[in-house]
């Protein structure tokens, strides 16, 4: 009996969270932008994303330890319509000659600008096996591995 109630409660919370998330996404004016070069500047992001409308704010993703750009950012528009245009048209275009990805985001909150990988950057860079000159070279794990040898 107790076990049954506990499971039911958990499911209810999950559903409620999902509904809230969907509502936030459907009203959002913020996009997450990924696969950026570490060298891409805010000004370049603005140049590209302004083509879709008036940009309110750009927050660059930062390596938690080195405090340098680490390949992602958030772009917030004043209006939902402009954000929709950016989502429809800028996804998979080139920025600094790299194909970037855009996705809806529930909205920037403090702390989300930092990379969450163990070495300070993004998670995805912990496990890359390729050499990406725009993202610091080899993945940090592979670099460390080679160093050990």
């Amino acid at each position: 009996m107790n076990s049954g109630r506990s499971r039911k409660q958990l499911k209810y919370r999950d559903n409620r969270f999902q509904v809230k998330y969907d509502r936030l996404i459907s009203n959002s004016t913020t996009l997450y932008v990924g696969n950026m070069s570490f060298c891409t500047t805010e000004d370049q992001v603005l140049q590209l994303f302004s083509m879709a409308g008036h940009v309110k704010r750009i927050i660059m993703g930062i390596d938690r330890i080195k405090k340098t750009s680490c390949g992602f950012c958030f772009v917030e528009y004043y209006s939902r319509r402009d954000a929709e245009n950016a989502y429809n048209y800028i996804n998979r275009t080139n920025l600094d000659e790299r194909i970037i990805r855009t996705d809806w985001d529930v909205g920037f909150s403090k702390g989300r600008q930092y990379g969450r990988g163990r070495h300070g950057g993004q998670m995805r860079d912990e496990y890359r096996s390729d050499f990406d000159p725009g993202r610091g070279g080899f993945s940090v794990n592979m670099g460390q591995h080679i160093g050990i040898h």
Partner: protein
Amino acid sequence: MPYKMTVFSALVGLMNLKNYSFGNEFIVHLLSTLCDCLKKTHWEDAQIITIFLCSLVNCHSITSESCISILKSYLSVIEHDSKAIVRDLCFSFILRTLPIVGEQLSNDMPDELESFYRALERYENLRDRENYLRLIQVWTSDKPHRQEEFLSCLWLQIKALRTNEWNDSYYMRYEKSHSILLSNSIAHSVGDFAVPIGFDMAEFPFRMSVFRMFDTSDCPEGKGLLPDKHSIERFLLEQDLIWLIDKNYTDPKKCAVELSNYYCRGNMPLSYITLEIIFGLMFRLPKPPKIELFYGCLLIELCKAQVYTVPQVVAQATEILFQRLGSMNIACIDRFVNWFAFHLSNFRYCWTWPDWTSCCDQEPYSPQLSFVTELLSRCQSFSYHERIIEILPDELKHLLPPAPKVFDKFSFEGTVPSELALELQEAIKARKEPEKLLPILFPEGESSENGGGPVESTEYKAEVMISQLLVLGQRTMSQTLSLLTRFAPVLDQLVKNNENAQLSLLNALRETWPTFEQRIGVVVDKLFRLEIVPAPIIIKWVFSREMKNEFLKQYVWEIIFSTFDKLCINYRVLSDKLEAVTGENRSPERSEDPAEVLALQEGLDACLGSQKAFIFTLFQHFIITLSEHLLTVDESGDRVSDWYRIVFGRMCQFFTTQCIEIQRHSKELGEVLFTGDLDPRIIEPYRWFLAFMN
């Protein structure tokens, strides 16, 4: 899916054959939907339904009498309405419907069709179709292709169709395969259809010009011929492709696939037509149907979808556009620069740059030199200085502005450092609260009566303050903007109600970032949003002597138009809020709050006031500046210059792209600014504007 019109009309015909009452209900519903679209001013939807409804005559679902009766309803409006724009709209409805029904009508009731045609001819002959054309042509030159007014071109295409006995070779007439069956159908009569009255409050579609860029000699041999530009087949193909693009505008990749798979009868260079259409939409005046970025992305996706044909045609088109810059509308040149820089940034800036080195010998601000300079500046914004230097031939490198570098004139080597600058710098660096800066800027007892040190002017203080914020925030845009936001109260107190101080602020901004056009635009935007600098001051600044060397550059006009755009957006936001509170569609939960309504109404009025002030200020400056220039030119006997071409073009651009907002004040503009005593060359665009909006 209007570009599959004949598939569905044949389907309806066959269904009507099987079930008469279905046919009747379908037609009644279609008629009802048509009236609904007309009332709601969904013009393109109404046009499509009109064409589809009338096309049912080919499948014996409606009678020929009914078909021509519908068309006569539009003709009736043409013969009775006083507004030219309404008459032209109805004329468009008729002309765009005739190609699909002409053959059937000429078989069934030739005399009545001929009589109808004569009535249309009379209207076309008396229609005013030239006075506004200059505002909306992409190119003003008639060579090599005249940019015709849309309805005049369509009329010529209809005439060609009639000469060919109303036989087109475009439509796939599926119903002909079932003609014996369908001839047994019982056709429906359409009840009396009257175009719904109520045009007074309506918003009408803009008049258009037809974009023409290619001719047969541009297309490779053996790939078929472009249909003649005055053939009905050309019109119908273009219309279908435009409908297809419109349907897929949220997904450029899918749109490109659909365009690539598009089938049309006959051998013809479809990629040339497709690209001409896309450029035509992108360059359409007053505004493209969708945002410019969509067309940029669509062209990229087409290059990927047809890698062996489209990129070559895009390059050819670009070269043609480049060669014809001399007569290109300034608004379209801006779009060309923006599109091509974006395009290059997606293809590693690969271009046959050496082909364009000859423009270096041209006069400053001549069309091609100006274009290349603006293009390189834009490419640098998408990328960085060293990268663009790397891809350019030596002859073009000097056209690229230097890498952006901040210039602090208050601590420049060789000059006495400004004490005020040093104090402010230290205070800002120490993260002092904004109000702690006020004693530095306004020391106690500061007055000439006291016989103290030299009194520094407010203008000087404004200059120092903004320059220090920009210097300290130079590393990133966010730093700059956060410092401006943090110290906005200080700036506001310095320059409030002081035009000269506000102008000093803007001049100092440009001096501090002498070649960083994008940053200047961002900071002006921020100062405007923070309400530190009002819109009319931005106009004054742009036309000031200090901005003489920047006046013809694209970024300056982007600042002007972007500022007005923010006023328009603000109006739309407030309108939507007011509608949500008071409109018929408001949700039941929201009871009308008189205080809220009043506040919103006051906000709207203030917003309209700001728009009006902007419009009058800008036109006033245009008139003064152009008048002075023409006076000088006339006295010295010089020909009008590139300077004139650009500035005059900017005034026309404002008339065209902001025509809806300007229309509210058109009468007063004629009484106050565009008066009879002005040079006719300056009044002319105002008259074009009146004709365009009438």
